[in-house]
């Protein structure tokens, strides 16, 4: 029997202050993944008046079981790395709010950020490090059947589909990993991917090939998910033959990657075609005093170490802005 101890949730009351609506901060950091937390460490060390708001510490890192490419650690659990990041921030007694999202930024010399808890934060600069979230298929039936057979967390909901037929949408690393996990439990796994080959790392594809209960539907796309109270079948289109057919099954796992959390930026920044924030080599956005770092930006490589490095850059860049440009 395994156990997955989440030590960070038991750490005694961390050392932080609540965010003051009356202060004008030098910078407000939005987001608590590796980019946001690294930015916080750099800002505090520079002596900037810093506020940090975040939804959940660690971001995607907290949801990652094992990390083997962060320097200094041949192996570390995502929860443990999150704990270490957070501890490093908390030693400074930062002004901090957890479980909070930004809803809108009002541009100006001093910027005002409205939060979903009803409060507002004023700051001379902003560092956006809000990361990404799981992408949906956006097809008929998906929304209605969420948690009724449509799932986005295969390790969570996989065990509920023991002996049943399931589909996995997506042939990247997360899709193939989900198919491996599900092949151990389900009777049949349909791996559905619009490209004609799997995009996942070879090592993952090879371990999937060891299972005989996986059916590959490459060059196919799910068009609709059907079912009254639960998922009953899906309509799949063959992209090359332009024909479609139905597969009766019980579950659809959506693993088609992620989209940036930039919904709250509509009126402030222009986004690229992937809804990412374009930044220059100093993490500057098109808006003066607004910086961005990590997976939310158009920096191509989405890696923990890259996000952390970008967070450091954004912090130093914001520091220079406050000292040399802000009037």
């Amino acid at each position, binding site marked *: 029997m395994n156990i997955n101890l989440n030590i960070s949730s038991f750490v005694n009351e961390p050392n932080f202050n609540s965010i003051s609506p009356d202060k004008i901060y030098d910078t407000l950091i939005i987001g608590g993944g590796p980019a946001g937390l690294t930015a916080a460490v750099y800002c505090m060390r520079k002596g900037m008046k810093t506020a940090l708001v975040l939804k959940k510490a660690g971001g995607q890192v907290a949801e990652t079981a094992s990390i083997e490419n962060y320097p200094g650690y041949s192996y570390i659990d995502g929860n443990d790395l999150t704990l270490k990041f957070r501890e490093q921030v908390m030693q400074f007694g930062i002004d901090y709010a957890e479980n909070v999202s930004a809803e809108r930024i009002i541009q100006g010399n001093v910027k005002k950020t409205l939060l979903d808890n009803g409060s507002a934060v004023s700051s001379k600069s902003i560092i956006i490090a809000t990361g990404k979230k799981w992408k949906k298929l956006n097809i008929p039936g998906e929304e209605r059947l969420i948690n009724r057979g449509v799932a986005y967390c295969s390790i969570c*909901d996989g065990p509920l589909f023991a002996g049943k037929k399931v589909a996995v949408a997506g042939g990247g690393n997360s899709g193939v990993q989900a198919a491996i996990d599900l092949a151990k439990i389900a009777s049949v796994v349909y791996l559905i991917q619009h490209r004609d080959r799997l995009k996942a790392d070879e090592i993952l594809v090879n371990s999937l090939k060891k299972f005989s209960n996986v059916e590959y539907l490459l060059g196919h796309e799910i068009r609709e998910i059907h079912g009254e109270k639960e998922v009953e079948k899906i309509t799949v289109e063959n992209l090359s033959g332009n024909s479609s057919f139905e597969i009766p099954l019980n579950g659809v796992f959506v693993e088609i990657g992620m989209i940036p959390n930039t919904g709250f930026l509509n009126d402030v920044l222009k986004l690229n075609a992937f809804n990412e924030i374009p930044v220059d080599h100093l993490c500057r956005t098109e808006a003066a005093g607004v910086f961005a770092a990590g997976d939310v930006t158009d920096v191509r490589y989405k890696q923990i170490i890259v996000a952390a490095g970008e967070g450091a850059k954004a912090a130093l860049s914001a520091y220079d802005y406050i000292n040399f440009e802000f009037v």
Partner: protein
Amino acid sequence: MFDDSVKNQIRTILNPLKERVNILYFTQEFECAMCRDTGEFVRNINELSPKLNLTEFDYLKNPDKAEEFGIERIPAIAIADSGGKDTGIRFYGPPAGYEVNSFLSALLETSGAKQEIPVALMNRIKAVNKPVNIKVFISLSCPYCPEAVIAAHRLALENTNIKADMIDVGVFPHLGVKYNVSGVPKIVINETRELVGAHPIENMLEVIEKL
């Protein structure tokens, strides 16, 4: 079951335990596939703090105790305070995997080492005056599930009218079918109201207030 480094981590987590906590483990000798592992799990945890007091009950030979605590199936764990008073906190199935976090949290909170709840919210919890049963269906590999279990258990701890069960769908698949669980966590309140996902105390309370 646990290696030394995990044992030490759990010891540290349990360090803030204030009052003694009674762990009641309901099991039986035969025909209970998960009882052996669950028993080993609670015995292991019990050894990690002098403030924990584990008592094991055979479900068949001790029907009175099972009835007193309203235990409906095994393996089951009930948590009682230092005086032996029932907290309403139940774990059906082994609280292993990610649920070790909700189990340790239940021990800490029962002992009095609690996270503070805002006064207005606490007043609403205390005002619940009818019997409430919260079932939280989980799988052990679900990182989001302990959040829902901890919230439900806290409600039970703060108001004796509220009982809250963690139920592992992997151990009790027939309950998964009965309550139509096809995504976890799923929260069922008084058999009729449902919430899907890891909802906080406020959301559960809103449903309870409308019962």
